[in-house]
């Protein structure tokens, strides 16, 4: 909404300067990023051994943080959307790209142990190896951009279902689906507490 205050428009196509968002948008990003980073570090998910412990299936801190966030956000954002306060931001479902991209991401996740958000948090707490991962992320993003035309023509169309959600598959009322789903995830969290893991 506040992102149209750009220095250059699309007409200036020879300019090498990136667009810059409005000050309000930049400030919001800074404030929410500070809170996000603070929470990630306090949640232990900036730590190499906590992230690697999750992938080795002995430390479930990452899953506990993620599922608690999902339960809270699913209920909260559903109710806010119902009240007309927020818009949804559903990413498209493309089976081949989600599957291949997801597995590639997972392999990289294990190698670096940091994911894009927790890597920034890891750097903040003094894990300097996160810098190597961040440089890799920038290089990988450009590499993807090089291939993006081919991927969008050849991979993205495979199993392209558009912006589908579980609501489209379940006959229940949206609120019932969200509540049931939140209850299911709480059940998963309780089951994890019973397991002999952290």
């Amino acid at each position: 909404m506040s992102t149209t205050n750009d220095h250059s428009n699309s007409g200036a196509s020879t300019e090498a300067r990136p667009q810059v968002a409005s000050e309000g948008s930049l400030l919001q990003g800074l404030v929410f990023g500070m809170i996000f980073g603070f929470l990630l570090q306090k949640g232990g998910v900036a730590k190499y051994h906590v992230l690697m412990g999750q992938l080795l299936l002995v430390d479930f801190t990452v899953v506990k943080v993620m599922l608690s966030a999902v339960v809270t956000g699913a209920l909260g954002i559903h109710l806010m959307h119902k009240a007309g306060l927020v818009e949804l931001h559903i990413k498209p479902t493309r089976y081949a790209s989600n599957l291949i991209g997801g597995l590639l991401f997972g392999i990289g996740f294990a190698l670096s142990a940091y994911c894009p958000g927790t890597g920034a948090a890891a750097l903040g707490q003094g894990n300097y190896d996160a810098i190597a991962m961040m440089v890799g992320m920038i290089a990988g993003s450009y590499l993807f951009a090089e291939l993006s035309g081919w991927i969008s023509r050849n991979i993205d169309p495979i199993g392209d279902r558009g912006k589908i959600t579980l609501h489209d598959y379940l006959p229940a009322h949206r609120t019932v689906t969200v509540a049931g789903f939140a209850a299911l995830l709480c059940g998963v969290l309780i089951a994890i507490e019973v397991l002999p893991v952290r």
Partner: protein
Amino acid sequence: MSELSQPTIVFAEIDPLKYAGPAWSPYLVGVLIGVLSMVTFYFSNKPLGASTAYARIAGIIGLLLAPKHTRSLKYFKDNPPKVGWELMLVIAVVAGSFLAAWSGGEITGQYLPAMWQERFGSDSYVLRTLVAFAGGLLMASGARMAGGCTSGHGISGTLQLAVGSWLSAICFFVGGVVVAKMMYAL
């Protein structure tokens, strides 16, 4: 005679749990991140996500070094390089995490994490650099292809019950568990 066979499996005993866990309850932190995502939906009309920031930096560098070529790429046509909300978010994550670690006395200040040293040696700087770089390269390619990362799909997408986000998030962990086990448990 059994002593000879012992050293070959010694690294299988690396235990991540002997290092310090989270400072706060992961449930408390998770609930607060859930509330934060409601706040960003409301105030910024954006979901929390981290991987886009790196693509923005890649695009900005690309504009400096090869502006014409960079602008010709489909991804940067659809997502023009921009100093915006997403980039500020990730830069601020570094600062927010520093404040949290500093206030909790958890600043590490080291290049090689302790658990990595235990497995790959205390002088494995080059190996760690290459592995972390390769990890970043694969994560960025995978995240862009799948449409998001552990934040964008794993939290923001799954909480909207998006099918592709759940599929992607599950694949993140399937790929991650297999490779982590190969690195540490085999």
